């Protein structure tokens, strides 16, 4: 997909994320805005997956390890045609399948997640099965930075490197904030690149909101033959909305009516700027 088209999609999907969170009066706003560009590029420019091939074993796999940022995933899947977008009006409502974490009951979702530190081990097993079958399947996951404290991730990292799973790509949504405070104040992550490299992974830093760079990087995998790839995507929690960016309370804050209108105006302005640029 053309870069400008992807950029436009990202802004429109941001509006939708806010629309449905505002409607539900619930959601992980900051993180959803943080991973949205990555998901947009994965689903629309990188992965071989669509409603048409979703039941083929050769489809690429995405498992969202940081399950709580599910609103972004719902919006991207709806946009991709997996289910009608208006279904999201039931987000977090009684008896709705669109709950606050991904589940397989939603078309397009591979695994139920929500507990942290679960995605990467499952992805490693999936990638190994693909290798065993000489299948072209590529496997992707997005992890949160706070989530990196879960020991199971490091078990899976040792495993993926040992088995040379270069069909596996983990993406770190590195917005540097978690629910309590900055990562470095809660439990220091740095130097994360060196830690990942020392576990046998090929590592690359990328601007997690630069569509062009994300596209280039994710299309150019593996970073190194024989090694799993870890993309450290530098992101901004609450990206795109001035008053949300890097502000802790928007981890799962829900905008008021006034804040919602303001957010929409900001995103419309960004859409106009994009059109002018084109």
């Amino acid at each position, binding site marked *: 997909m053309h870069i400008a088209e992807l950029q436009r999609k990202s802004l429109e999907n941001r509006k939708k994320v806010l629309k449905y969170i505002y409607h539900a009066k619930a959601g992980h706003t900051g993180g959803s805005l943080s991973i949205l560009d990555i998901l947009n590029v994965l689903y629309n420019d990188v992965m071989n997956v669509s409603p048409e091939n979703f039941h083929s*074993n050769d489809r690429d*796999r995405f498992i969202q390890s940081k399950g709580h940022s599910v609103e972004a995933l719902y919006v991207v899947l709806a946009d991709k045609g997996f289910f009608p977008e208006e279904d999201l009006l039931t987000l977090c409502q009684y008896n709705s399948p669109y709950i606050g974490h991904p589940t*397989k009951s939603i078309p397009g979702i*591979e*695994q*139920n*997640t*929500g*507990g942290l*530190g*679960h995605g*990467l*081990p*499952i*992805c*490693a*097993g*999936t*990638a*190994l*099965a*693909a290798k*065993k*079958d000489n299948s072209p*399947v590529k496997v992707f996951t997005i992890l949160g930075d706070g989530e990196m404290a879960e*020991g*199971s991730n490091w*078990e*899976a990292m*040792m*495993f993926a490197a040992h*088995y040379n799973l270069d069909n596996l790509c983990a993406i770190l949504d590195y917005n540097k904030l978690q629910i309590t405070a900055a990562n470095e104040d809660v439990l220091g992550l740095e130097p994360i690149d060196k830690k990942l490299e020392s576990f046998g992974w090929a590592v690359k830093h990328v601007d997690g909101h630069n569509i062009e760079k994300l596209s280039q990087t994710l299309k150019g995998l593996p970073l190194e033959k024989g090694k799993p790839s870890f993309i450290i995507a530098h992101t901004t929690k609450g990206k795109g909305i001035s008053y949300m960016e890097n502000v802790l309370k928007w981890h799962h804050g829900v905008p008021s009516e006034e804040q919602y209108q303001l957010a929409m105006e900001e995103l419309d302005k960004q859409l106009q700027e994009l059109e002018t640029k084109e």
Partner: protein
Amino acid sequence: MEETKATATANLEVFSEVLQNLAASDKDIMVVTSDSRGSGKLVPFGQKYPEQIVEVGIAEQNLVGVATGLASMGKKAFAVSPACFLTARALEQIKNDVAYSDNPVKLIGISAGVSYGALGTTHHSLHDYAVLRAINNITVVAPADNFETAEAIKAAAEMKSPVYLRFGKKNMPVNLNANATDFKIGKGRVIQEGTNLTFVATGEAVLPCVEAAKLLEKDYNISCKIVSIHTIKPLDNELLLASAANSKPIITVEEHSIYGGLGEAVASLLFQNGFRNKFKIVGLPDDHTVSGSQIEIFNHYGISAEGLKNTALNIIKCD
């Protein structure tokens, strides 16, 4: 069981043999181990089918996660690890990745219960029935003899939903009732008929019931029915309700805490269906477990011919 002793094997050995047979004609059979191929008697499997065994190292959470990924790609993934670690260290993976996400992983708890004996509580699994019973969408199986083990593994390989099987290390009889050759997950087996009392047992606790029943028959002319409930969940309600219908005392026996296991499952079923039989749950009490070998621990807590005989005599006296 004198006649079968010569060929009796540990259920764990049976597991390994059956799995090799299955792997011979099925490339999708995959065994995942956590530095446990020796304890799981899987060294021969690994030698014969090196492409079908995956080592994850001592990392049980990753073991279950990797098995989940394999299963999601259509593999018949057997995650093999000591029951104590598998069902405690990796419980969240079992709950979320396997049961909740409905991935047909076959979880194999080896050296279960107090098989590790004197190695102590870190290595015992006396909680597994209880925690897994409380998790939706997982079948829980503890075979009593070699026959039930072989049949359970063959059935598990073809199951499309999550299943947990646990085995011990000790030699078990080939078949506790050679006439009962029907095996179905979720359906108990009648090991012997009897009129005065019913033993309801599971896993390696069935054998001491058979031995106790012989003493009771010979010395006291007490006739015991014995039911092997190899599937703890879902429970064979039909067989259990029918077995309770004679209003005779029931003794449940398991290599598990008396809390949350077979005994409480059966009690719940019977009580809610109006039965008021004399009822006794035999298992490991809610206490620090005594040290010793499996057999010494069994003897200490009355999971033995002598212990169960005495329990039976007491309950019949009060009947």
